[in-house]
């Protein structure tokens, strides 16, 4: 049992200070803005919950665009999770156990994860174009009219396939780590018990992957919920606002239009939503850990 010692706060102080400076201070200014309105010229007056009410009102301009962007984010996250999680698990199951092949595979898999996000956007911006990109040319060559700049479906398709290309490796690597932790004896026992491949997956591998999958789904959901750079570089949020996700809209509002009150209100609600999701997953994970500890 770990000893109780409040002096440990001294060790935590640097982190506390840094994150306080980086997180709390800015958030305080956001809260400040969110309850004020301005005549311009830096003159502010109290607006109470005004911005928030407008934000959550679908009939208002602000509310309409906020809820539309939120809807787009939820659909986007849903789709990419539905693709990346099974694909990641599948790839993890196919990865070699050891040796030089493993090193090569891991390096190639990690490459998309280390590409700066704007370069990810640039790569796909080019790759998906019909005139200068292999993918775009190939799809159009198959007879499908594919133009992400003009067609909303094509834009969505491009953004999704870009995210899958970008992030599946993360899930795969996490699952691979989880799989490696399973002792050989489990597979041996399953052979003796006459279990087929699917039974082995369902009864041995999948349960042991639960914990890493919770982590992976959390990371991917949150990161896809916050997505900004990649779609911004490829589609700029368009065509129209077909791919204008929450972050893109927020930045437009805050840094483009300098609509501080509205942007601040949106920021807080946005932040609150991610906190809520975080809390749900955190609870799930601590419960999984507690269950594991009870048994061991």
């Amino acid at each position, binding site marked *: 049992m770990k000893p109780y010692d409040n002096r440990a706060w001294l060790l935590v102080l640097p982190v506390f200070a840094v994150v306080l400076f980086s997180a709390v201070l800015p958030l305080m200014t956001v809260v400040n803005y969110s309850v004020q309105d301005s005549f311009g010229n830096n003159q502010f007056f109290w607006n109470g919950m005004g911005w928030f009410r407008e934000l959550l009102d679908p009939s208002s301009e602000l509310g309409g665009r906020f809820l539309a962007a939120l809807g787009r984010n939820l659909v986007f996250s849903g789709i990419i999770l539905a693709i990346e999680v099974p694909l990641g698990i599948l790839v993890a199951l196919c990865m070699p156990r050891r040796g030089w092949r493993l090193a090569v595979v891991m390096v190639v898999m990690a490459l998309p994860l280390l590409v700066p996000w704007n370069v990810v956007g640039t790569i796909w911006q080019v790759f998906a174009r019909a005139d200068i990109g292999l993918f775009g040319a190939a799809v159009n060559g198959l007879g499908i009219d594919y133009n992400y700049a003009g067609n909303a479906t094509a834009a969505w398709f491009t953004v999704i396939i870009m995210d899958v290309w970008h992030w599946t490796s993360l899930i795969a690597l996490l699952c691979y780590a989880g799989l490696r932790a399973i*002792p050989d*004896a489990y597979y*041996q*026992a399953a*052979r*003796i*018990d*006459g279990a087929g491949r699917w039974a082995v997956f*369902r*009864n041995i591998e999948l349960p042991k992957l639960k914990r890493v999958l919770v982590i992976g789904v959390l990371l991917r959901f949150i990161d896809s919920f916050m997505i900004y750079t990649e779609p911004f570089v490829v589609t700029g949020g368009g065509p129209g606002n077909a791919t204008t996700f929450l972050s893109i809209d927020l930045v437009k509002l805050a840094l483009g239009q300098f609509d501080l009150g509205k942007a601040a209100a949106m920021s807080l609600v946005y932040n609150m939503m991610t906190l809520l999701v975080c809390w749900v997953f955190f609870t799930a994970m601590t419960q999984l850990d507690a269950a594991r500890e009870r048994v061991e």
Partner: protein
Amino acid sequence: MARITLDGIGHAYGPRPGGPADYALQPLDLVWEQGLAYALLGPSGCGKTTLLNIISGLVQPSHGRLLFDGTDVTHLPTERRNIAQVFQFPVIYDTMTVAGNLAFPLRNRGMDRAGIVQQVARTAAMLGLTEVLDRPARNLSADAKQKISLGRGLVRQDVAAVLFDEPLTVIDPGLKWELRSKLKAVHRALDLLMIYVTHDQTEALTFADQVVVMEGGQVLQVGTPAELFERPDHTFVGHFIGSPGMNLLPAEVSGMEARVDGHALPLAGRYAPLDAGRIEVGVRPDFVALTDGPGLPVQVDRIDDLGRVRLARVRLGRHRMVATVPPDAVVSGSEARVRIDPARIHVYADSRRVAPL
């Protein structure tokens, strides 16, 4: 199945083995009879787990043939051999209840529901798991889980041999005895061939009808616990079994006498003059006793009082020995005499026992 025959079974690390160091298991011949319990005893790395895995089919031997009742099963896949294996730590399916775990091997083999229910109930009763049948398996204690692992092996009616790979490793010491008794009870009830790998001699000697002592990839001796104790064929067996192990003294042997550092030890048998290789005589501390009467003069270094017995660490000439101190003897000073029972002295040349003429 009546027996398992190992015909020249060996396993080398690489494709072209040169000397003994290239083998995980050196080629051996063994026959194991149905209904008996065998222990594979030896230190880590002696090849016992490799041998076990060859029998279960998890490892393909590089040499030799494996026969189950005369049928060559060397290349038969694990699931088609009639064996079950229990591992060092409990292997259970977290997603299922205890009943589900026990039913799993039967479901995979396509047995009907009624049959499964009956078999599961029978096996659970035998192992004392009936009360927990409907509980999730993952919440139980380690020893219950090991029983489930064993149960999954016993639930199949076609199982003829059960293999154990150090199954008591993660069990609490207090529960080890209980689980061991359960294993023996199951063995008596089911007339199975049981093969038990361990590095703990107490487990091996209490569990097994026959013990196979292994070291460095070789089988050194196969025998009942009594045979191993009284007549070790190899100095390692003598040393490994018994606590403390056998005393080994370099000697010259000729006729009915052995000479250790100038001291004469009478032997119970006649031996041809031995001069080739390293000659040693071995005798267990149990048969070397401090005495007031006539005996060999020794220097006493230390007396260890273990409660139920006292052991004396002595030196005969330059060589160390362990002797027993009779309960009422008083040891004073550092000089004493020991009496060695000639019938219990064995002669070893290059670590192997030499039989008297």
